[in-house]
């Protein structure tokens, strides 16, 4: 019995997921030694983000022709603005991005280069631009660091099944067929397990399943992973699905996958395999009973062997490790994780955890770990740091935790920091005691802040999860949360804010009336729907909740160093923030030496960077960016739904939104930083006059006296934007 386990695209590219290493280790421990693991996600990113592949995108997109056509118009409608935004960038930077993408990957993978912040930022920008260039080849499909979305919605099985054969808009059809399937076929598996954790993996996973069945119909294809806990049963009702897969495993996969493989090897009836949905010999779809989840103390250490650890876009692996499964609290009414993981809370012992870390550290030469847990349990918070120190493990790590006021005392915080804990993310949610009580969070907001301060004072970066729009929450309560976070921002480094979504798997969905949820609106076209729009009879409306969310995002941008300027790139690239924390030791050092770094000012005789590329445009790109962003903000779209504008919405926007009149601008690209700036004609003119011979004062004399202050500020901005050559006069980036 030869088994292939595949992580299908798209998952994030900075570190591996834990599912395949856990499953592979379990199967091997049970005697199934012929197990092969593939991370098709990172492999596809690596190929898509390569010079030759991106040159093909440049040739196929033909941005120059498309842009010329749009430039011939007097006005642009919404859909034309979308294309103009994409094509103007590709026309200016496309060939340079293709030429520099391989170097960008090298920077992200090489420790000596990765921690040089300017080079890192340049590499990150190049990757973002490359993903947009690649996506344009398959428009309106969008592949990003954090997602893959296609036309249509993945809550609709019709749309999903349509997408898996769409070679024009689904980039994985060709890649899987030409690049991945031949390597999978070389292994010649009898069983292929596809692990689907995120909604973004659904279409690529089924695309691959279809190709496997076309190549080798007798190969058993089984679908598993976290997403199926939400949509598996619904998806199983589509007869078409059963032409591309043979079974689905719900919830934790170790035992069902093992028993499935054993049953197939011995040609036994699959009806005895737990947690399975399958089609029997008569063609009837059957579901087997759920088994008790395994005690994770009985599980082997995950095996990352076989995964291409060198391909991830990080300078060294950040390995995930689950020291617990489930949530020991398990009461928050909005949460679903404690019902879909396990269900049931279980933990490894401290000794096992230390051994797991030691084993993985030695095996993969890494000292960076992400503890993939819902919350660090009190016994672990107290005992694990000492155990790590006693064992001399010398690691850096981070995790999520509950705000346990009585657990995280000063000594525990100091021990955690000493053990290498660099970051803890807490579920704070709200500053309102009333809202927290309705959520069943079981925490006191005032004492939570004391805890946060202790953690921060110990030198650990603090992240808070915050939720706005919980049913019954008022605007004043949301405002209180924001004000409280801002007042304590010296002790809080990151805030992860989201709007409340009504998930049908949650407790609050079942008890909707108790939370003043007056109406729930199912989408008749979405047979895989998980999240529902709704209306409450008290508290904020959904629109008000969205506005409160936008207030949060604006405030975070203004007040938190990690969200300011180009520091955003940290967060778009996930574990990179953690790696930088580990490198600099504490957030305070990171902020002083990296985030608020000094840049050079304009100098006495400013000079335009000679390598700049400029492109005069007939329409104002800055205005287009702003308009498109404003449109997207008007939509409240839960997770799992595409954030692409639908065809119907696009047609409506084309009709209803006033078209944009021509208004020239200049797009300037600095190849040394990778940044693109949109300049008004007057700003571009000042830039052109910065020839290194004249002083700033002589340059601004060209404009009327009443505009010279603006012009002086503009020259400073040109310098801050990196468009002028540096001078010895430093200024702080703000």
């Amino acid at each position: 019995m030869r088994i292939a386990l595949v992580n299908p695209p798209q998952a994030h590219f900075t570190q591996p997921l834990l599912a395949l290493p856990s499953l592979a280790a379990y199967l091997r421990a049970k005697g199934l030694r012929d197990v092969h693991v593939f991370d098709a996600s990172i492999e596809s990113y690596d190929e898509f983000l390569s010079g030759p592949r991106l040159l093909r995108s440049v040739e196929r997109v033909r941005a120059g022709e498309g842009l010329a056509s749009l430039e011939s118009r007097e006005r642009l409608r919404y859909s034309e603005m979308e294309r103009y935004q994409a094509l103007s960038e590709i026309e200016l930077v496309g060939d340079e991005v293709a030429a520099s993408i391989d170097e960008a990957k090298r920077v992200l993978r090489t420790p000596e280069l990765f921690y040089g912040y300017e080079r890192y930022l340049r590499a990150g920008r190049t990757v973002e631009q490359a993903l947009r260039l690649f996506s344009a080849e398959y428009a309106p499909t969008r592949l990003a660091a954090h997602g893959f979305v296609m036309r249509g919605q993945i809550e609709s099985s019709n749309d999903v099944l349509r997408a898996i054969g769409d070679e024009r808009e689904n980039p994985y059809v060709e890649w899987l067929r030409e690049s991945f399937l031949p390597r999978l076929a070389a292994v010649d598996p009898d069983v292929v397990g596809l692990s689907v954790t995120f909604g973004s993996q659904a279409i690529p996973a089924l695309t691959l399943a279809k190709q496997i069945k076309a190549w080798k119909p007798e190969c058993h294809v089984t679908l598993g992973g976290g997403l199926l806990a939400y949509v598996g049963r619904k998806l199983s009702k589509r007869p078409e699905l059963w032409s591309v897969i043979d079974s689905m495993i719900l919830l934790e996969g170790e035992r069902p996958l093992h028993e499935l493989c054993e049953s197939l090897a011995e040609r036994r009836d699959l009806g005895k395999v737990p947690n399975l949905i399958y089609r029997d010999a008569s063609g009837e779809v059957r579901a087997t009973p759920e088994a008790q989840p395994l005690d994770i103390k009985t599980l082997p250490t995950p095996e990352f062997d076989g995964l291409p650890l060198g391909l991830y876009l990080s300078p060294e692996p950040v390995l995930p490790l689950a020291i617990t499964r489930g949530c020991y609290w398990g009461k928050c009414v909005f949460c679903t994780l404690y019902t879909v993981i396990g269900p049931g809370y279980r933990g490894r012992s401290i000794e096992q955890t230390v051994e797991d870390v030691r084993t993985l550290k030695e095996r993969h030469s890494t000292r960076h770990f992400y503890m993939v847990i819902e919350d660090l349990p009190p016994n672990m918070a107290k005992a694990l740091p000492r155990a790590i120190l006693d064992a001399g493990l010398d690691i850096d790590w981070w995790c999520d935790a509950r705000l346990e006021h009585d657990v995280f005392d000063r000594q525990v915080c100091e021990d955690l920091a000493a053990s290498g804990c660099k970051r803890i993310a807490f579920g704070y949610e709200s500053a309102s005691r009333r809202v927290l009580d309705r959520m069943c969070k079981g925490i006191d907001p005032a004492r939570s802040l004391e805890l946060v301060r202790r953690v921060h004072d110990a030198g650990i970066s603090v992240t808070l999860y915050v939720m706005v729009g919980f049913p019954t929450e008022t605007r004043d309560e949301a405002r209180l949360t924001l004000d409280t976070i801002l007042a304590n921002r010296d002790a809080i480094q990151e805030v992860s804010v989201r709007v409340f979504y009504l998930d049908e798997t949650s407790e609050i969905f079942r008890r909707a009336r108790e939370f003043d949820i007056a109406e729930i609106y199912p989408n008749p076209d979405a047979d895989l729907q998980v999240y529902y729009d709704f209306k409450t009879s008290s508290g904020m409306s959904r629109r008000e909740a969205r506005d409160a969310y936008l207030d949060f995002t604006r405030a975070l941008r203004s007040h938190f160093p990690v969200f300011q300027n180009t520091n955003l790139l940290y967060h778009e690239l996930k574990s990179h923030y953690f790696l930088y924390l580990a490198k600099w030791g504490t957030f305070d050092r990171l902020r002083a030496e990296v985030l608020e770094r000094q840049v050079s000012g304009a100098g006495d005789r400013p000079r335009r960077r000679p390598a700049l590329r400029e492109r005069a445009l007939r329409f104002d790109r800055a205005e287009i960016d702003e308009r498109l962003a404003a449109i997207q903000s008007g939509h409240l779209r839960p997770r799992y739904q595409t954030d692409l504008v639908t065809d119907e919405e696009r047609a409506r926007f084309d009709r209803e939104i006033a078209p944009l009149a021509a208004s020239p601008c200049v797009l300037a690209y600095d190849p040394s930083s990778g940044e693109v700036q949109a300049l008004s004609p007057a700003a571009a003119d000042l830039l052109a006059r910065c020839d290194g011979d004249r002083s700033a004062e002589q340059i601004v004399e060209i404009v009327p006296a009443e505009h010279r202050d603006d012009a002086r500020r503009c020259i400073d901005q040109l310098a801050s934007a990196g468009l002028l050559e540096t001078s010895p006069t430093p200024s702080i980036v703000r």
Partner: protein
Amino acid sequence: MNPKNPDPGPAKTPPEKKDATKGARQTAPEDAKPPAPKPFVFKIVRADPKNSIDFEDVADK
């Protein structure tokens, strides 16, 4: 996969309506290049089509 989080963006500078070309000519040094283009709106914006951060992703798994 997350809802877009729009960038509030920089404050827009209102377009300059006054014709100041004449004044520019009067005050420019002799060796200056031709006068700066009207209107005198000096705007520099990072052209980033993403132009936003999904705050939900900050510490997402």
